[in-house]
């Protein structure tokens, strides 16, 4: 059975719905608190999937995700890299995204390059919203055709279902320079974008989420784990029963990842036999 690891910490508060998302997608889940992981990082080796939930880790003191990321850089970066080498998909919504970019997992090495031994310096940042305010609302989502991201590739959406909820105060995507943004685009590492007409936080290039060059690690500001049922859609009471059939956008992402893991192990099987 495919096992998803949910990492919790003081102030992490989207862990339960993230766990539910993996379960609805067909995985089993196990949770581990950062205080356990710091003593025993090898727990990560047991995971087929990893979720870094949203929330306010350590109160987002200094900056969103900063303290948690620093603790992880020091104690478990290695285990994350070996998990990626094993082909473990990871999702990091909201605070998870803020942590992943500072932990050195995103955007990660350019295609063809290997992971560095030690965590690299962050090259992108999730800065304070241009409104300087926390904002919770639903926004349109656009997935680039050529994305490498195994989570967002091939999502089936309609105009009414291509929506996803955001809830953050520090989500303004800022790359260290224009060149990096161009490269991420060219390399298919842009996993999803805001609609240019509806960019809620001033993100450069309308970037909503990015993946590493393997497409396994998805970091994004919105919360796909909050769109697993049609009754979570912002105006579902206006939608006919018919248009509320099929998997909602959020659930599709998690099913993509679980399917990826299952196919991978299926291939292994066939190789062995």
């Amino acid at each position, binding site marked *: 059975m495919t096992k998803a690891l949910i990492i919790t910490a*003081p102030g992490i508060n989207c862990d339960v719905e993230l766990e539910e998302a993996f379960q609805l997608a067909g995985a089993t889940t196990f949770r581990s608190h950062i*205080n356990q992981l710091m003593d025993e990082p090898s727990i990560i080796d047991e995971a087929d999937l990893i979720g870094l939930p949203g929330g306010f880790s350590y*109160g987002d003191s*200094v900056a969103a995700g900063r303290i948690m990321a620093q603790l992880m850089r020091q104690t478990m970066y290695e285990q994350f890299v070996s998990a990626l080498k094993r082909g473990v998909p990871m999702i990091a919504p909201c605070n998870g995204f803020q942590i992943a970019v500072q932990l050195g997992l995103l955007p990660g090495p350019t295609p063809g390059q290997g992971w560095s031994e030690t965590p690299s310096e962050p090259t992108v940042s999730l800065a*304070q919203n241009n409104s300087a305010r926390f904002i919770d609302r639903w926004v349109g989502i656009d997935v680039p055709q050529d994305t490498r991201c195994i989570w967002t590739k091939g999502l089936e959406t309609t105009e009414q279902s291509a929506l996803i909820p955001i809830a953050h105060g520090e989500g303004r995507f*800022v790359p260290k320079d224009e060149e990096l943004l161009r490269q991420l685009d060219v390399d298919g590492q842009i996993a999803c974008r805001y609609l240019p007409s509806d960019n809620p936080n001033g993100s450069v290039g309308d970037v909503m989420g990015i993946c590493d060059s393997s497409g396994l690690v998805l970091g994004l500001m919105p919360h796909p784990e909050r769109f697993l049922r049609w009754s979570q859609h*912002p*105006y579902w*009471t206006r939608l006919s029963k018919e248009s509320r059939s099929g998997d909602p956008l959020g659930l599709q992402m998690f099913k993509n990842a679980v399917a990826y893991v299952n196919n991978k192990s299926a291939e292994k099987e066939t190789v062995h036999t």
Partner: protein
Amino acid sequence: MPVFRIEIAPQPTAADPAGQAALHQAEVAGIHPLPREVKTTAIYLLEGDIDEAGVNTIAQSLLHDPVTQTHFEGTRSSKADATIEIHPLPGVMDPAGQAVELAIEKLLGEEVRVQTGVRYDFYGIDATDAAKIAHRCLANTVVHGIHNEPYHPDEFPSGHSHDMSVPEVPIIGLSDDELERMSRESHLFLDLEEMQTIQSYYKEIGRNPKEIELETLAQTWSEHCVHKTLKATIHYSGPNAENRPHHELHDDGTHTIHNLLKSTVAAATFELIDEGIDWCLSVFVDNAGIIKFDDEHAVCFKAETHNHPSALEPYGGAATGIGGCIRDIMGTGLSARPIAATDVFCVAEFENEAPQGCLQSRRILGEVVRGVRDYGNRMGIPTLNGSVWFDNNYAGNPLVFCGCVGVMPIDKIEGDPEHGDRIIAIGGRTGRDGIHGATFSSAELTDTHADEFSHAVQIGNAITEKQALDAILEARDAEEGCLFRAITDCGAGGFSSAIGEMGEKIGATVNLEHAPLKYAGLTPSEIWISEAQERMVLAVPQSNVAALQAICDKHGAEMCDLGEFGTEGAELVLKYDGDTVGQISMSFLHDGLPGTTRIALWSPEASSHNGEDKVNIEALLPKLLAHPNIASKQSIIQQYDHEVQGRSVVRPLVGPLGDAPSDAAVVTPVRGSSRGLAIGSGLATGLSSDPYIMATAAIDECVRNIVCVGGDPETTAILDNFCWPSANDEASLGRLVRCAHGCYDAAKAYRTPFISGKDSLNNQFTKDDGETIYIPPTLLVSGFSIVEDIEQCVTMDAKQSGNKLLLIGTTTDSCGGSHALMVEPSMECNTSLPQVSFEEGPANAKAVHNAIKCGLIQSAHDLSEGGLLVSLAEMAFGGGLGISVSIDGLSDTMLVSETPSRYLLEVAPEDVGAVQELMNSVHCVEIGEVNDSDELRVNEYSWNCDTLRSCWLEGMVI
């Protein structure tokens, strides 16, 4: 030890949203002259045994973001015209500083003390004008120090130590005058009779009280903790008191009411339970009221006010308000999981000039919202229902109501400590903060309170509370069974009330020196009564202490063993380093309070009718929609994470554009279950000139809101929160009795039991010139109700062109207290107050619910502030559609009258017959239909929906 200073600033080319926000705040506050630009810098002051290199590492690896920020060790010079720095005052909580201390310890193994601050560089204004902005918009001198140059102290102030002995207070032999002076000067806020009772008790046992005992009595007997006014014996003369429970009629027609609460609010509940309501599981006894949700789960609800702290320091006051209410849920039964929060604020209009010693209304509301946002969002609890009421009599004493809903296993709804259980505290450390909060909140505010009571104000740390919550729920659900036998929160009165209440029947022995402290130097009395936030007290069998400790360690939640429950003769024994510093019998502490007797008078005002029915309806509607009570609350709601936990089914904002005002919220307490919980509220302060009518209207509105989203009026439980200007004079107390009568009658008529409540009876402000501002009598009714299947939920936004509109309920021309009159005082109309009909109200609610349950309703919206016109407009622009109605027999003022118990229903043409069938017992008229136009047309009047929408969206923006 040296103090190092680190500055973290945005890179020269990077944006500075915080700076722009500061500029914007100054602008909306109407400050002149305005700076050309404001730049912000985060300041970290580090004190510890570290060197330059260590400081550089900390700045590099922990404090700055290489992509967008620069760091500087020391003080950067700048070309700014003025520089202001804002730092927390000594002793004020600095959660960010605490988090950095923890991180440095974990990362570098160094023990360093950290304080954070913000540097503002102003361009284009001088130091004096910059200071003005700091005072008006950026800092509150109750908790902040404002420095007009970069702040780099030589050392951190450390807790000044006190004499640890607990003095005896000579009370035996004091005269009445001396007793009263003692009560006032040591902030006991006890009246003479209560002081005399204490005096004679100690005379009897032959000694004077220890200071700590007196403090314990003062807060246990405070209005805030025992609600002595609502429980008092009241001699009431006024109408409509006949044949009520515990109302003793006298020959002169007056009544003696034995315990007002028991005779009204509680009486309604217990009578309803006798009449067969079987889903109330715990009422009035626990930290929150509990009802049955399904066979395995119960849900609980509590609402509180945090008015006085919020008046002095709105940010900290509101944050600790929601934090305390969440702890009530954590401390209900054997702990519930908080799943939703609600908030209602009452403030003065933004244009109102703030009295001396008060903050501007816009500032208060902005800070209150920030406080609820920062605490609720960090706790991961969706804030998804609320409202704001504007009235200039709230200028000196704003009201901040915070509510919280929780879910728990149905077999964990109660627990009691047993002899020998350990007294375990989990969560925050104890400091000098919040001392005298209980007695302070029972006092009246004056213009000098900001100085006198700043120690009652606190800054909370949501993460500390979240860690405690995570640990407690894990301990509750432990495989070997719940690890504790009872739990409660430290609220007003701190350990004193928490342990005092838990040990009421069996006594307790407390070793005060075991409490972890924020800083050295707290006296035993201070430890005992401190109201420092984020602390829970549990009764834990000795055999489970180790397992609980392991769980707390995992979550990084601090836990300590304060002593043992159970003593010979049920006493409260307080020890410090082995010496007994206080000893009171629980029976005197909890039952010694003398019952008071009060006089209450009520005489109705004659209702009037000012001339013809005349008003310019076309001009009125846009003004109504822009009235701050009615206007969109989007700028508040979107700052709250109202979707965390993924339970939200009906949100505070609905419609295709996500900006239409929902009547209530619906969440799913149990994952995977299609059973929902509707959460709503009612507030009818406009009718406060007759609190009986106000109370019945508030309950009617709460039920209406819940019904409109699919809630079942038959399983609706409600809460009462009284906020009164005072309860000392006969007229004011008369209004309170009148209001309580309304609560009883409406709760009985609607069959909605009260399950919990709270009151705050001293909400007045005495200005420097001696004039006192009294708040309007205010009653918040909060409610929740079962939604059998969330598929049945409906929202208020118009759905589809061609659908018909039905108006349920009769409309009267009574416009007293209506928003139309607030907007157009010259309006000629019937100015009597609209009355709730106990026949129509419950019948309408039931009929509408049935129609919704049958899936016949496309959208439902109740008629409240602004009456029919406002509801029609909201439905139309909420759904991005037009509406056209024509109604015979309604005069113009009846289009904006606020008659209760009315609903607007949108029904598909083919279902109209079936709905009318279901409505045959109530007043139901088809008034028009939804169309594709961008126009609202009512009889001969019409408006452009987009124009109406903008008036509504722009009416109230923070």
